[in-house]
């Protein structure tokens, strides 16, 4: 573990300790002594590739799955000993929009409201509020099957917020969405976060964890391999990098300029004609480089100051990119098929 942060005295809304869950008689370890916690009112991003154990973690914490061993509480309530009490205070929105597709958005929200034991009137009032909050009022009376992927996810999220849960679990809320759907979903989640919800969010998108989470745990093969804020994790990898693409004939001259300003060595990708170097002074370095190149009449084709991505973090911790686990997807055995239907 890189950085285990200890919150002294802070209220923990979610605590998982040494969770173990195996499938196929112990052959596949979905969770391998996994521990994590979420402080009240914060967002924890659980980041990892497919099959890392993200979904299994959420399923255990949301009482859908019993761990083989280990211990977990949500809102101070033990998920194994008193699952019903846990269900009263959580909201869960899964990877695949879990709605009745033949019914309308309105029907679905009223149904789930009734199942949360709201009266008919309360359920209708809440459905109306949520449809407005998620900009779905215009489509409220259309069957879900006519919804776009983004609309389904928003409605699915709305359904998990009916009773204003104390803790919200979002399992890969944007997987499979197009960029626009993803942006819309991010906005929705960000507004929830501003409202102070405690959120555990899983994602395989590094950028997503960066955008939405206060803290991030990186998991791989059922274990937490790193933990910290997005900035802390990035600091582990290093600072910003300057990347410049120039004409082939200008590479050597440009490289000299960059190395002088960056005060260190650079790397060159001859094929892409890209020179990159770590810089300490960020935008100041960028401006300086541009001035000098301009004086030399070198016109960069592309120019960027890159902050290290969480992909880089994953690479530096595990030594491999955030790719699918080699072991079969015990986490989501039927994933391929489901994806195919979308």
């Amino acid at each position, binding site marked *: 573990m890189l950085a285990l942060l200890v919150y002294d005295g802070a209220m923990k809304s979610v605590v998982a300790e040494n969770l173990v869950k195996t499938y196929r008689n112990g052959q596949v370890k979905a969770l391998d002594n996994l521990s994590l916690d979420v402080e009240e009112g914060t967002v924890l991003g659980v980041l990892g590739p497919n099959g890392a154990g993200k979904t299994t973690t959420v399923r255990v914490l949301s009482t859908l799955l019993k761990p083989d061993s280990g211990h977990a509480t949500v809102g101070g309530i033990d998920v194994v000993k008193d699952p019903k009490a846990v269900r009263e205070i959580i909201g869960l929105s899964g*990877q*695949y*929009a879990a709605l009745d597709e*033949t019914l309308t958005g309105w029907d679905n929200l009223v*149904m789930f409201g009734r199942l949360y*034991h709201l009266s008919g009137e309360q359920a209708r009032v809440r459905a109306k509020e949520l449809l407005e909050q998620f900009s779905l009022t215009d489509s409220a009376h259309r069957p879900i099957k006519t919804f776009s992927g983004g609309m389904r996810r928003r409605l699915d999220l709305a359904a998990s917020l009916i009773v204003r849960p104390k803790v919200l679990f979002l399992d890969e809320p944007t997987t499979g969405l197009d960029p626009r759907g993803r942006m819309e979903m991010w906005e929705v989640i960000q507004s929830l976060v501003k409202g102070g919800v405690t959120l555990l969010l899983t994602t395989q998108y590094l950028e997503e964890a960066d955008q939405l989470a206060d803290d991030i745990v990186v998991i791989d093969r059922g274990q937490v391999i790193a933990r910290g804020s997005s900035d802390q994790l990035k600091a582990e990898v290093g600072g910003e990098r300057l990347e410049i693409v120039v004409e082939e004939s200008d590479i050597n001259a440009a490289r000299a300029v960059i190395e002088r300003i960056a005060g260190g060595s650079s790397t060159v990708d001859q094929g892409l004609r890209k020179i990159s170097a770590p810089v300490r002074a960020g935008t100041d370095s960028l401006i300086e480089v541009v001035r000098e190149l301009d004086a030399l009449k070198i016109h960069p084709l592309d120019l960027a100051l890159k902050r290290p991505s969480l992909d880089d973090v994953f690479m530096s911790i595990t030594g491999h990119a955030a790719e699918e686990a080699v072991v079969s997807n015990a986490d989501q055995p039927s994933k391929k098929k489901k994806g195919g239907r979308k």
Partner: protein
Amino acid sequence: MSSVTHSVSDALVITKRQLQQLVRVPEVLIFNTIQPVMFVLLFRYVFGGLGAGIPGGYVQLLMPGIFVQTVTFTLAATAQGLAQDMEKGLIDRFRSLPISRSAVVMGRTLGDGLLNIVVLVVMGVAGYIVGWRPTSSLLHIAAGFILLLFFGYALSWCGVFAGLISKDARVVANVSFLFTFPLTFLSNAFASTTTMPKPLQYFAEWNPVSTMVAATRQLFGFHNTFGVTAHSYPSEHPIVTSLFYMVVLMAIFMPLSVRRYKSANSR
């Protein structure tokens, strides 16, 4: 509200959802009623000649057979519905809600039972049009239909279990159909069992479909002339045997299904 009232109201919400589905996708109900009506017409006019010598004609024996066959298919319908909910992750969501563990399966079986009422009414009318005339009292006729609904309900619980273990709606629908379809023909529903090979005759005598058909024929006021070969207990006491089968099915599959639901993981 007490937890019992909650269980009931939760189940009713699930049932209501199923009825809403019928409103949103009326094709389901239409197909569900067209198929049995088609069977009524086909058997009535293709095999009608078989009934020479039967008082009132073949249709009097045929209708109970088709009624039973149709409610038998409830098993496949329930299994498919639940497997679909598993596939879509709806069962996961239901399981994450603070509702009773039996609500979803209770609601589903009740919904399928209500659907059977509609189907039986449509078939009854179709049967009447093509000459079916029960001769017993209204009370007996009502008892016949209640027995049919109860049989469908019992089979629905087998369907719940099948749906929860399969997780694949198309597969479970096909398998359930492959299982129930022959069962409805290896019986006294459409033809006399006396012409079958001996081992099949015994099977047909004890087949719950046969006991149900014989029981409803009796309740609708007709002597069951299709299959009283062995003077076996089920053919002599079809109502009692049928009730026994239903109670046994439910005693096995109700707890099994609820248990299965508690740990049902769609992924």
